[in-house]
């Protein structure tokens, strides 16, 4: 049984405005993944998305008094994330850093499982890159972060039907792009090896 009901965003924002560290910490916990997802939808790169998401949370804290509707903090935050991500992209438009899976840089050959995960992530990022920014954002917020249609519609300030439509086309495009590359860990025998 829960002894403390989770505070709503409005309460946390008002407390954070007064410098309450615990309240701001809870807001970060709630929205760091979705901030990352939106940043990734703009930048297309893990490292940039991580930087942009962190930077956006700090900018949100500095500008917290400008959040006119504390109960709608999520939508306001994601606007900041989007803008900061685009700024970062513009600043680093000539960056050519290759996609290195987290935790594997300089560690030598990857174990099979880690390698297949890294390849899947590369494929996913390439597939996401072929979507429009809004489709990426919506499919990440829904399928990756777990937001409901109504939450996305409210926080992105768009009709629910539009959200569903973007989600439908995003999923269709991703499946088409990923279909030949699915099941990297398949246990099916290799061709030519089983006949005998």
């Amino acid at each position: 049984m829960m002894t403390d009901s989770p505070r709503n965003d409005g309460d946390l924002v008002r407390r954070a405005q007064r410098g309450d560290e615990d309240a701001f910490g809870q807001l970060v916990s709630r929205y760091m993944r979705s901030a990352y997802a939106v940043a990734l939808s703009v930048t297309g790169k893990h490292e940039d998305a991580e930087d942009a998401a962190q930077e956006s949370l700090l900018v949100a804290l500095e500008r917290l008094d400008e959040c006119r509707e504390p109960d709608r903090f999520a939508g306001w935050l994601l606007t900041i994330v989007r803008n900061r991500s685009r700024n970062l992209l513009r600043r680093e438009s000539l960056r050519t850093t290759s996609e290195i899976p987290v935790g594997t840089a300089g560690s030598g050959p990857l174990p099979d499982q880690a390698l297949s995960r890294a390849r899947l992530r590369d494929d996913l990022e390439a597939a996401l890159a072929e979507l429009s920014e809004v489709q990426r954002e919506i499919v990440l917020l829904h399928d990756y972060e777990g937001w409901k249609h109504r939450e996305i519609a409210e926080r992105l300030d768009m009709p629910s039907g539009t959200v569903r439509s973007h989600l439908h086309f995003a999923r269709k495009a991703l499946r088409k792009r990923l279909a030949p590359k699915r099941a990297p860990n398949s246990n099916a025998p290799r061709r030519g090896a089983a006949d005998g």
Partner: protein
Amino acid sequence: MADRHMEGTLGIDAPVTELEAIDPGAEDGLFWARFHRGVMERATAELARRRDLVGVTIADALSGWARMVVPMAAAAAAVAAVALFQSPEASSPERLVDVLDVPSTLDEDLEGELMPSLSATAIAESF
């Protein structure tokens, strides 16, 4: 998760569950804890500034209130003191009689006395 599963069983597009692979925490279990800690460390100064601002604001309000109330209280005390000590005649019996609007017929009996008497003798003698 349940919401997404329900959508699949209702014939709506099923979620692209492969997207979970882009989660940096899937490979690095401490990623999100580090991310959170990184944000909070960088937020320390701003949070402290906000707390200080709240403290200053309260102190300012209290001192401002005091600045307004203390002079007003002093002025009120001064006026009360002036009113209290200004006019000695205010306590004289004649003035009191005038203030109480005692009828002239009774006035005669009160002449020379400080307080009107309501004793039976006094009343009888007045008729």
